[in-house]
């Protein structure tokens, strides 16, 4: 558990971790924390676009909904999307990386070239295309994000598997009759775990940002979902008068993405002994 201690000693990373933890707590208890939990879907035209006040700390939006409540309620969506996308991407990328790294020849070549093709497709473009193809919505956005993020896991795991494939401890395992599946899952994958974990953490932040962009462009979450990106998009028509309308959802995006990135950087430093030494 030295890695955890190192992470906590790294103040910037600990700060990132704190943000993520805070977001997690907010997401779990959102309906109880939000001052007006029903504002996710209800509208109150009479109190639209009120500036921040004691009653509405972040102000109200174009339909008179409490922005603080909607930012809180949106946390759950943002995290769910991020976790689902990253888990799906790992579920695709990790086995492909292991298989391609272990085998030689056409199978490995095919898998890695396919990986390269997916790596070459710009995330946003694919997401937009898929959004048009399927019904625009958060589902299509998630599929598109998962489809464009798995190559990073495949590459990371591939590199580690290739490095260790000819290691003596792997030969020894094969020599006493361990199956390739066993060797890969129990002995090789743990070596790649820190790199995968770092990738996943940074991927969370990245996914939240991209999902917000998709929401902003109208191919992500659909109204009246309390999506942060969507809120920023809806706010455009009311600028610059209702400055509070895009600012607070925008700040939420900024803060959570920052949190994941700082945590990811810290994890990388803690997981990589070489970087660790250079920093101290």
């Amino acid at each position, binding site marked *: 558990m030295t890695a955890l201690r190192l992470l906590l000693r790294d103040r910037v990373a600990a700060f990132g971790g704190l943000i993520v933890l805070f977001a997690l707590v907010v997401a779990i208890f959102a309906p109880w924390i939000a001052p007006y939990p029903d504002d996710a879907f209800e509208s109150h035209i009479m109190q639209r676009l009120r500036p921040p006040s004691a009653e509405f700390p972040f102000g109200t939006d174009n339909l008179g909904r409490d922005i603080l409540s909607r930012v809180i309620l949106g946390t759950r969506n943002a995290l769910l999307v991020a976790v689902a996308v990253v888990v799906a991407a790992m579920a695709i990328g990790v086995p492909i990386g292991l298989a391609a790294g272990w085998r030689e020849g056409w199978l490995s070549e095919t898998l890695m070239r396919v990986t390269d093709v997916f790596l070459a497709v710009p995330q946003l473009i694919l997401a937009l295309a898929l959004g048009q193809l399927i019904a625009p919505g958060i589902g299509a956005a998630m599929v598109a994000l998962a489809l464009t993020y798995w190559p990073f896991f495949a590459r990371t795991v591939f590199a580690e598997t290739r490095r*260790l494939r000819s290691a*003596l*401890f792997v*030969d020894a395992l094969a*020599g006493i009759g361990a199956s390739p599946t066993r060797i890969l899952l129990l002995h090789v994958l*743990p070596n790649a775990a820190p790199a995968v974990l770092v990738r996943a953490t940074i991927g969370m932040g990245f996914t939240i940002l991209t999902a917000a962009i998709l929401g902003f462009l109208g191919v992500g979450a659909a109204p009246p979902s309390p999506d942060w990106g969507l809120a920023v998009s809806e706010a455009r028509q009311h600028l610059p008068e209702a400055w509070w309308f895009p600012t607070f959802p925008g700040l939420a995006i900024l803060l959570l993405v920052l949190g994941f990135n700082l945590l990811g950087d810290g994890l990388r430093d803690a997981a990589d002994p070489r970087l660790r030494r250079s920093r101290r």
Partner: protein
Amino acid sequence: MSTPVLQVDGLAVHLRGEGGLARILDDVALTVPRGGTLGVVGESGCGKSTLLRAILGILPRGAETPSGAILFEGRDILSDDGASARGRIGFVPQDPYLSLNPVFRAGDQILEIMRRHAPGSRRDHRDRLIELFRAVQLPDPEGALRKYPHQFSGGQRQRLLIAAALSCDPALVVADEPTTALDVTTQREILALLRALVADRGLSLLFVTHDFGVLAAICADVAVLYAGRVAEAGPTRAVLDAPRHPYTRMLLACHPDRATDLAGIPGTVPAATAQPQGCRFHPRCPIVQPGCAAQAPPMVALGAGRGVACPWHEVALA
């Protein structure tokens, strides 16, 4: 005479690969007597590592052993029912860096081998390992159990692996150039340690190296390997003082400490997929005779345990 610890007889190892069939080892015969130390020397690519891998049962995928036998304490370990005897062969690898899995504690990995091959309880194994760590002069033997491989230095890691090789009370220790990855001073310490351990515990040793200096320091006997065949074998002193095979003679003349001017051997070791017919050294041999390309020369016994695979071993080099 008791049965030798290890007897390799007419061993051939072929590897089917992209370049066709590679005959990596051909008709290799070696003997390690009980308590003996045999060194196998040769240039890179002569089949040293393949020989070790065949003994340890970790030949690469696609490799086969069409003929020959490896008798360990009288049992053929190439056969299915003899393979289990390998538990009493200890192995010291060449590269101490990736021989242990970086994500598990070094001690746990060695204890796992012991649980498989050595009798006794977990407590016994632990005590025995700490004792071995002390024997290989690893600092802080108790603390070493809890460390990960990367927390040891290169020399320490090699000591750790020597302890691992000794952990299951082996009859034979097989070492693959265990000092090449280390700096000279560490190399010296490790060799001294290995020599002391072999002498104290009455172990037999098969030591693979390309360094005649290391060989002379540790091995009583030597077998010189060229392109997958034994060129010359015998007591180390005798072979080094008066080499008979043209290859050994030229190889020793290349050694910077001995050579008056650096001669070198023209040509290169043939690729394993394109071995020449007959004597595999004949294309590079300065005293090549008309018959050399026709058939592989048999081992000529020279007395005093020496043998040379060259009928022209008395001809002076040009």
